[in-house]
Each structure stands twice: as C-alpha cells, then as structure tokens.
C-alpha cells in the first residue's frame, strides 16, 4: 500500500473511532474534531473548527468552581502535567460531562510545541457513581457518629434512674430500714436483680457497639491465666453448690503468664461459665480445661454435662439477643449478648472461639484460643 493510502486509512480510523479525538493549538483553538466528538458534543465541523475550547466544550469554570480556563492556559505551558487528565466538559446544550483525556503534544520541525492531540472517553457515569459512593460513605460515617453519641447519651440517661432502682433496693435490705416480711424481701430481690440485669444489658450493648465501630481498644498487660481461671470458678461456686453441680479444673502445667486484656478475658471466661451454669441441670458437672496448643497459642475450654445444643440451634449460639429456650434456662441468667460479645473479644485478641456438642442432652464444650503474644 502506498504511503498516501496508509495516510487515508489512518485518517479514516481516527475520524471514525468511537473515542473523542481532537487537536487544538497552543492557544486552545480547535484544529481537528472527529465524528464521534461532533456527535458527542453536538457541533458541526464548521461550527467548532477555529473556535477556542473554552466557551465551547470547556466551561470557564466547572460546577465545583474550578477555573478551567486557567487549566487550558496551564496545559499549553506545562503539557507534561496533563498527559492523563480528568476534567469536566460541556456539551453544546450546556450539560456537563466528565471526560478522561490523554493529551499528547505535537512538535513542529523546530521541536516547539505546536498542537495538542487529545483523546477522550466519557466517564460521567463512573464519576457519578464515585460521587454517590463518597456521599454514601459520608452519610454512613455521620450515621455512625450519631449512633455512638446516641448510645452514650442513652447509657447516661438510663443509669440515672437505674441508680435509684438498684441503690434503694439495696438499702431496703439494710438493717436500719426495718425487717421486711418474706414476700417483701422476695419482691425487693426481683427489683434488684432486674435492675442489675438492665445494667448488664446496657454495658453489653455499649461494648458490642464499640467492637462493631472498631473503637474497642485492648488494654494489654501480663497476667497469670491459671490464677484467672481458678478465680473465675469462685464466682459460680455458691450457685453451683446450691444446684449440686460439681466444678473442676484441668490446667496444663506451665500455663502461667500471658499478655492479653485481663478484664476482657475474665469477662469471656465468666460468660462461658455462666452459660454452662444456665444450661446444666442440678447434679451435673462443669469444668475448665486449659492447655498449650502448639508454641503460639493457649486453648481454654469450658465444658458441662448440660442439655447440649440441638442441631437446629447451632446457628443461634453466637447470635445477638438469641437465647436457646429451655426448661433449664434459669431466669435472668444472661443478656443474650454474652456469647457474641465473648467471641468478638477473643477475635480482637487474634484468637478463635467455637463450641462442640454431640447434640441435645449430651453437654457442651465452649473453647477459645489466645495467642501467647498479642500486640
């Protein structure tokens, strides 16, 4: 094919390509405008040739107030800064669009910049989607802030009346108040227990929302895990004795100091023990096992001979506000947030939590791992 033939073929290619292709001189006057550009912007060739891009396909300022005339002037001075450039453009009717441009400077025989070859693709929809995502992100962040401050206020407002409910029901049982009859004492206990229950709910909700918003910070320190596990049993000792439940521990030799958030680990162990207490009928057994799992982890399990977990209830165990209905489920024993919260606390440490149960009536075993070196 002759050189001329090639040239014609290339100009047809440029003319008919489905991209915006134009050239302008260093002042911004249009010297070429392909078919797609004409259709896209809405100009006939004779209407655009020789016209400046500013005022035709480029508005002097874009919708955000950016000075586009200055941008075009700067492009002539510093073309290398605009090789890949995204900016707002304007259709003939005034509608704004976003175009991703690649701009190439064309030199004359003396090596001076003569023209700029601009190839553009319409990215308006992409830009809109990007803006929508940004807006949605901002809305989500502000909703999250509103939620946190709502929860903080709720916590404060609920604590004030709770102070009176819990406090006065404690005072009723002081000697100075006078003797209560059996029924009165029972009712006061119910008020007190219910107040305490409400308080645990508030605390658990606050903790859960902190974990979910990523604001829960672990307070890491070294402590003796063996001592913590043994001490935890003391909390349930009285209740266990009342229900004829035998408690035991099996802690591997050499389990001692770990680095973790002591308060949270305590809360996890306490939740697991309370859970076992709740679902273990009188005369059963509850135990804690702890052993090293490899060199990097410790695993702790709380097991019981309780009612176990039915296949259909397995998914409920770590769900919020789910409590498995059962005749053994002792009233006011939990908030329905203890398990999901415990799992999250363990995961914050980089550990795992799971349970094993061979089914209804066969007891359950809740385990978690703690890395030996957190943080």
């Amino acid at each position, binding site marked *: 094919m002759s050189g001329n033939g090639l040239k014609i073929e290339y100009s047809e290619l440029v003319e008919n390509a489905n991209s915006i292709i134009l050239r302008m001189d260093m002042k911004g006057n249009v010297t070429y405008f392909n078919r797609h550009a004409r259709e896209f912007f809405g100009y006939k060739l004779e209407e655009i040739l020789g016209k400046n891009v500013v005022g035709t396909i480029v508005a002097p300022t874009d919708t955000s107030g950016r000075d586009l005339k200055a941008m075009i002037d700067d492009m002539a001075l510093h073309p290398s800064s605009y090789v890949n450039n995204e900016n707002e453009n304007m259709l003939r009717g005034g509608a704004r669009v976003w175009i991703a441009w690649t701009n190439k400077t064309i030199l004359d025989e003396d090596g001076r910049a003569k023209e700029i070859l601009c190839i553009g693709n319409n990215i308006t929809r992409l830009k809109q989607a990007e803006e929508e995502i940004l807006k949605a992100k901002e809305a989500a962040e502000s909703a999250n802030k509103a939620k946190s401050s709502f929860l903080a206020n709720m916590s404060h407002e609920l604590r004030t009346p709770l102070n*009176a409910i819990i*406090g006065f029901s404690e005072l009723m049982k002081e000697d100075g108040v006078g003797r209560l009859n059996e029924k009165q004492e029972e009712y006061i206990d119910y008020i007190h227990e219910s107040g305490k229950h409400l308080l645990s709910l508030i605390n658990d909700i606050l903790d859960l929302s902190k974990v979910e918003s990523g604001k829960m910070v672990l307070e890491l320190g070294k402590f003796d895990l063996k001592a913590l596990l043994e001490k935890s049993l003391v909390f349930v000792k009285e209740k266990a004795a009342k229900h004829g439940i035998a408690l035991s521990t099996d802690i591997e030799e050499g389990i001692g100091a770990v680095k973790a958030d002591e308060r949270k680990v305590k809360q996890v162990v306490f939740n697991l023990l309370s859970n076992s207490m709740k679902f273990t009928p009188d005369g059963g057994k509850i135990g804690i096992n702890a052993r090293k799992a490899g060199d990097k982890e410790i695993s702790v399990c709380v097991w019981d001979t309780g009612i176990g977990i039915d296949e259909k209830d397995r998914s409920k165990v770590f769900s919020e506000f789910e409590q498995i209905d059962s005749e053994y489920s002792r009233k006011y024993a939990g908030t329905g947030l203890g398990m999901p919260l415990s799992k999250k606390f363990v995961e914050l440490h980089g550990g795992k939590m799971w349970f094993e149960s061979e089914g209804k009536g066969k007891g359950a075993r809740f385990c978690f791992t703690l890395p030996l070196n957190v943080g």
Partner: protein
Amino acid sequence: MISSIMNNKMMTSGDKKTVMVVEDEPLNMRLTVDLLEMNGFNVLSCIDGSSAVETLKQAVPDLILLDINLPKMNGFEVRKKIREDSRLDKVKVIALSASVMREDEERVRAAGFDDFIPKPIDTKGLIKKIKDHLS
C-alpha cells in the same frame, strides 16, 4: 473564718467524718445521703456546683462526692475551685458519674480526682471506698 470552720468541725460529734454530696438529681441525692447516714457519716448536701463552692467557704468536709454533670458549674469546675483553696488541700474528692465511657473516666482521673465511681453505685462498694480513702 478559720474559727468558724473549727467550730463546725468540733460540732460534728466525736470521730464522725463529714461527707459532702453534690448531686442535682433529687432521688440520687436522697439515696447517697441516706446510705451515708446509715453508715454513720455526717452529710452536707448541695444541689449544684456553685452552691457547693459557696458551702465550701464555710465548711471543710473530709470527703466530697461530686457529680460531674451538674447545673451552673460542672464537676470539673468545682474540682478546680477546690484546688485553688489551700484550706481544702486534704479533702478527698471522688467523682460520681453516670458518664462511664473510658474517655469519661480518663478525663476525671486527669483532672485530679482521687477516684471515679460509676453510676449506678454499688452501695456496699461505695461505703468501702469512702472508708478506704478516709483511713
């Protein structure tokens, strides 16, 4: 002035300690006051920050239970006023607050309170803490 404070101290019988309670919520005030009296303390009560500051010009309690969210002058401002008065150097000041987030407690500790007690209070725990601070 000094002598009237001495008198005030001497009027309080024997080794009974005096606790000032600053609390704007009437039921919470009643609870804390009754609890303290049942446990043998003399009680001075003030329903807002500025009346507490006024009362402290006349009397020097052994310990102050100071709510944080108070009308007129909040607990932090009252704490500052107490610090500015050298007569009150030895008075223990405990914050009693329903704002219990970790940041709240940190702010209270940073402001130089001797202790932070979250609401709702544990009545036995509160008495034990007060006794510990006064021993």
